[in-house]
């Protein structure tokens, strides 16, 4: 569903991502892990067509995002780390806008269900600039789910959410994966990956340091007295890198 081959991205001489290759199949949840500036957000933004790749191929549901962007984007749902909603529109109007943009004809029933599942029903006529950070995040997720995308990309999905909201979003992600969506999550919350992800990729300085199934990571790094396997893997890889640089 998602196939990335030799993807690189450079900004004015600075290499944000270097020669990245991986694939995510339907039903899989890939967790992107790495310190700040590792290239996680750049990878997600390139996958959803916000920024063009410098080199490499990014295939979404069989469409190259650079060559057939419209067809590829029709299959993507993207939730950025800081959702920029339209101030002058209500929650419902965001869903109506998304439905028109993605050509979803009878969207009302699905929209109602999404509002209900994210506990936004009572906020349907609220202008979004009056919503809290967490509520805005929920609106962005509801919009991303409306057209039933085959590929869902989450950048820090739990920021600003209350415990109830976190549980709801986690459940929604599991359900989408079970329904056959290929999902990528970028986050700093290791516990989120342990709860949800089937695969893990550790990025550092724009390069892939580790890619494999969750089971592989757990068996490779094991669990220490104080740290989880993922935490152990993360610090082992990134600290080794820092020491190497020093």
């Amino acid at each position, binding site marked *: 569903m998602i196939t990335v081959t030799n993807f690189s991205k450079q900004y004015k001489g600075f290499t944000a991502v270097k020669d990245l290759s991986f694939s995510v199949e339907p039903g899989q949840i890939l967790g992107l892990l790495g310190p700040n500036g590792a290239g996680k957000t750049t990878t997600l933004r390139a996958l959803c067509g*916000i920024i063009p790749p410098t080199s490499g191929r990014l295939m979404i549901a069989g469409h190259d995002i650079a060559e057939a962007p419209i067809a590829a*984007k029709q299959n993507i749902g993207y939730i950025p780390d800081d959702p920029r909603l*339209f101030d002058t529109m209500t*929650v419902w109007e965001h869903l109506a806008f998304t439905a028109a*943009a*993605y050509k979803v004809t009878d969207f009302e029933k699905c929209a109602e269900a999404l509002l209900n599942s994210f506990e936004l029903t009572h906020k349907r006529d609220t*202008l979004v600039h009056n919503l809290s950070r967490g509520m805005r995040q929920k609106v962005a997720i509801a919009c991303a789910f409306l057209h039933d995308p085959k590929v869902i990309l989450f950048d820090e999905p739990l920021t600003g959410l209350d415990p109830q909201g976190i549980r709801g979003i986690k459940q929604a992600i599991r359900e989408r994966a079970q329904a056959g969506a290929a999902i990528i999550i970028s986050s700093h919350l290791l516990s989120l990956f342990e709860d949800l992800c089937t695969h893990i990729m550790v990025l550092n300085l724009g390069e892939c340091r580790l890619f494999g199934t969750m089971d592989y990571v757990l068996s490779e790094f094991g669990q220490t007295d104080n740290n989880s396997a993922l935490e152990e893997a993360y610090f082992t890889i990134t600290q080794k890198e820092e020491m190497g640089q020093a």
Partner: protein
Amino acid sequence: MDQALFRLLMMRLRGGFRLRLIQLTSLRGLLFFLAFFGIIWLLVVTNSSSSDMGSMSNAALDRQALSAQISTFMPISMLAMSLLTVALTTGPTFHFSPAEINFLYTGPFRRRDLIIYKFGAYVAGATLSSALIAIFAQGQTGSALSAFIASLLTIIFVQLNSAVIVMTAQTLEGSRLSRIRYPVIALLLAVAAACMLYAWATPDRNLFDLLSAFRHSWIGTIILIPYIVFAELFVSSSLPNMAVWACIALLINIALLRAAIVLDARTTDRALSENARQSNRWERVKQGGSYWATQRAEVHSIRRSLVWGGLGPIAWRQALNVARDSLKVVVVFVGIAACAGPLVAAVGIPFTDPRVLTIVYTFFGFILPRTLVCDFRGDLSRMEVYKTLPIAPWRICAGQLVVQVLVTYVIALSLIVSVTVFEKGFVTSGALVFAAFALPLTVLIYTVENTIHLLFPKKLVPMGRADFEFLGRSLVEFIAKTIVVLAAGAASAAVGFATLTTFRTSLVLPALASWITLTLIVLLTLVMMQYAFRRFAVAETVD
């Protein structure tokens, strides 16, 4: 003023100065800075050389005539501004930013000290504005120093006067006196409308004659007394004379500052909520929203969006933006456009006069695009959303322009209809030509405006009063836009002229050829805009 607050003020001034220096260290900042001062210098040189070209006696006569106009109309304009402040009951009181509220409101400072601190910050900004105004006004006052003092005292008066009016209105809120506000405003508007109608209906008297008669009547002099002081500052013929008026102006400003401090004690709660509202508004303006956006939390949702092959949702989003963010601005602009006809007729200058056309172009090419923003320019922080949509870039670009162009076109049509109705001798066929060409010209202005913003994204509001980079860039943009519009107009006119000389028919065919040429140029610029949208790099910071 409290020592700590004084120190904070000095540090902020130094910080502002440092920021300007940092701007100058970048090539772009330096170029825009030079562009801004280059244009100012050109204006000053043109102004002085044109006055040098005339004889000395002519220059003296010009100065006398200008003095008479300042003396007559400046107090009336200042009164109008005060009345507008009363009507809106919002405006520049003493605005504290959220950071200032967090640090200073909780600090060991008296309200009086905070007001003086804020006033000090305002005076610092006004000093800079006055220095700029003095460059142009020195020809009138005789020296740069007198022009500077006159400008500074007047700017401070305008701020304090507005603050005191708003604070007084807030103090009187809920009392019986506040109930008469709207009837009084309605009465004043009726008087203004009656005066305009009278001027229009009377052939030998125009609106300015009526205003002049009011200013020089005894009742006019009494009403305008505080404002006359500031007009006299600009027209004083000698230094002692100016010193006297400056002292009176200073006393008025001190009295107003004192009144502001007294009134502030009675409006503290209201001031806090106003500050929060103001801060939210500015935050929204920085994000591309409108200052006049709706304050409501909930509205009736529109159930479905337009589709129109992908162009619809974008246009629909901008239509909602105008309806909820800028409707008041649109109504005001339509009102201004509708008043243009009676005003032009009352003044007695034909609409086709180059001076009037220049004002109209400046309005549509500069003032309107800066005030009414419902296209890409207001959405630079949301480009991520547009980039992820499965909609072809040209449809997104066209969708962004639809509402902005339609709203501007409605304003332009109001102007044309108003002029057609009120100006004697302005024929309907002329109005139809204006109406036909106004549409592609409007599209052209906004396509160029958006293309520039997509290629060189920038903030919508300046960083403080002395953001010369912002000012320079705005002027350069306006000039670039004017060059494109003039070039397109010239090409269109050339085709029309060629058609006329080739076919020697009536004017309909050449006009049609011109219109088609202009429309084709507009389509070409739309292709440019689409290119700019495609190459827009979201990841790079919008400064």
